[in-house]
Structures are given as structure tokens and as C-alpha cells.
């Protein structure tokens, strides 16, 4: 099984999101906190106007998230790679066809921000696979 994201890996993700020219176009109204959970290892992303303002690893109960996107590492590994196989090649593909890929919480808020959220997931897909070291 592959390694989970490290603080350095998540920081590079933040830089990539915040430097993305499309997020600057579409992100004005995307301001909320949500979590990405890699087999129980959760990262709270505080998004403000389409930019990741803050990241908290395994937040305590006093940091509520509107929704959480979670999956086992064996699912994330098939998504975060240069040549994803069919059904693992897109956020919405996995929501429809991969039962272990889940979105919990306020899914209405997620879909209200579908364009920016989808873009963030597509940026996540372009990250190098986590190696646990950097």
C-alpha cells in the first residue's frame, strides 16, 4: 500500500491550487472548510475565495468541516497518477462508480461549488503520488 500525503505534499498541493489561473477565475464564491481523508488521515482545507488559506492535519472537533471527501489509499492511488484507469480518472466518475469513494456531510454545499471543487480535485489528480518522505 502506498504512503499517505505528508505535510510537505499537502503544502505543494496548496501552492498548486493557489497558483492555478482557472481557480482565480471561478473561485470567488468558494469559501468554506472541507476535509480530504486518506484512509482516515484527514486534512482540513480552509478555502477562502478559491484559495487554500489554511491546512490542518487531523483537526480536532472544534474545527468543523462542511463535508469530507474520503477513500482508502488503494482508491486514491488509482486516482492520483498520470494514467488513471477508467472509473478512477475523475472525481464524479468515482462518486458514481467507486463505492468506497465517498462524500459525507453537506453535499449540497459541495455541489453548489461543483465547478471550483471539481477543479481542485483535478489539480489533486496532477500531483505526484505521495511517497511518504517529502
Amino acid at each position, binding site marked *: 500500500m502506498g504512503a499517505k500525503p505528508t505535510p510537505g505534499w499537502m503544502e505543494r498541493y496548496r501552492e498548486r491550487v493557489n497558483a492555478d489561473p482557472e481557480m482565480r477565475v471561478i473561485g470567488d464564491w468558494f469559501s468554506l472548510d472541507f476535509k480530504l481523508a486518506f484512509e482516515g488521515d484527514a486534512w482540513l482545507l480552509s478555502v477562502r475565495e478559491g484559495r487554500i488559506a489554511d491546512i490542518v492535519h487531523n483537526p480536532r472537533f472544534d474545527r468543523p468541516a462542511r463535508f469530507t471527501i474520503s477513500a482508502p489509499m488503494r482508491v486514491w492511488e488509482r486516482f492520483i497518477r498520470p*494514467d*488513471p484507469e*477508467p*472509473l478512477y*480518472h*475523475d*472525481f*464524479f*466518475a468515482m462518486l*458514481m*462508480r467507486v463505492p468506497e469513494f465517498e462524500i459525507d456531510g453537506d*453535499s*449540497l454545499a459541495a*455541489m*453548489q461549488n*461543483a*465547478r471550483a471543487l*471539481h477543479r481542485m480535485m483535478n489539480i489533486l489528480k496532477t500531483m505526484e503520488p505521495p511517497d511518504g518522505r517529502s
Partner: protein
Amino acid sequence: MADLEPVVGRYLNLESGGRPYRIFYEEAGQGRPLICLHTAGADSRQFRHVLNDTDITARFRVLAFDLPLHGRSNPPDGWWLEKYRLTTEVYLGLIRDFWRALGLERPVVMGCSMGGAIVLKVASDHQDEIAGIVGLESTAFAEGRDNDFLHHPAIHGGELAACYTYGLNGPDSPEEGCRENWWYYSQSGPGVYKGDVWYYCEDWDAREDIKRIDTNRCKVSLLTGEYDYSATPEMTRQAADSIPGCRFTVMKGIGHFPMVENYALFRGYLLEELALMA
């Protein structure tokens, strides 16, 4: 000199199921009619590359029409008192009445997604009137795409439908083709995509009908993209297995919208099938 495309748009007034409709269609070319059916929540612009492909228009009169409520085809009178739900019966009737109103003889009918589904019914019910069908992303039975967020007052339906379908493109398809389809999807009227999906996921079941298709009378070609997770290659294969003599090809690297997401790759697959139907 103006850089004009050979594609011409027309309006056709026809009656179908006892209701009058004003239907917009585009056409180009000469030869055997090739009717093109767009996907759910979209319109005939998806076929602009087919309409501009001289290797096709030299042998086919290509016609792509917008379903009522889509593109430039108006909703029928009284639409504001109806919750839009496309049905197999209405859809099939509109396609049949389109070719009859224009006097098209022995057309080939090609459709994608929900259009790729209904062409199976066109073949089962009208196989003596048509030359064949080309089903793109076809299934005889489909579930799982409907959800209440597709028409919700707190969600921009156009943006959600466009994003919801964007992943259906193959990951290596040119971005400009995928984004073009995103744009088309962002423009459907409130609830139209959901009403189409209702047909596709709730009303549509042709698993018994397709057993009646005689490919000696009506040729059947089914092409499905490798990355299609709505109508997966396996779902099309199940339909193909019920149609003796049917041709079935999985298109490598392509998703759910071959004619718009990656026409350069798709046209090779398409030309091979059309050569059998000209």
C-alpha cells in the same frame, strides 16, 4: 472572402404525438440521410465536426436536430404547466416524425448517450424504414445518473450539469473539445438535463426490444469509449450480445462524447462504420 462553413440551419414545424413543435436542425452534405441525435441536456452543436467532415458529407446528407427544449427548438405550448420528463415514447416519436416530415428515405440514425440508447429502439421498431443505426455510448438499460441536485433552487444547474458530465471525457482527450462540451452543457434550461436523465435512468429499458432487431434489414454498429463510466463498455457489450450480427467496438482513449471531445480520434472509428451503411 468570408470563411463560411457548409452547415445550414433550418426550422421545421412538425406534429408529433398530437402536439405541434418548432424544431431547429442543421444540415450539410448530400447522399443517404444521416440523422444525428445529441446527448442529454445538450444540443446539435455537438455534431459540428461531423457536419464539417467532407469525407462524410460527400456521401451523406447529415442532419442534426435539437430536441424540443434543447438548443434552438422551443418547448411545446403549455410547457410551463408540465414537469419536464422525456419518455421513450415521445423521444422515439419525435425522431420518426422528423425523418417522415422531411421525407428522408432509409436514413442512418446515429445518436450518443441517450441518443445512443434510443437508436436501439429506432432499430427494433422501424428496421424496415432505416438503413442502420450507429449507437455511440449505447445501453439497453441504464441506472445511476439521476440525483436531485441536477435541478435544485440552491444550485446553478448549468454549472453542475457541465461539471457532472466533464469527467465523462477521456482523460487524454484534447482540453478544447472537453471544454466545448462543458459549455454546451452549461446552457440547457432549468431541469432539462434532469428530465433527460429521468428518461435515461428511469423510463428506458429496451432489453427485450433489441432482441427483435434483424441486422440483415437494419445494420447496427455500436461504438463505446473506453473511459465512459455512464454507459460503460461492458453495458454496451451486454446490449450487443442480444443483437446477432451487431458490430461492437470499444474506442480506446475516448469517453462519453466522442464526436465533440476528440473528433480526430473518433472519426476513424466512425468512418469505418459509415462505410458499411452508405
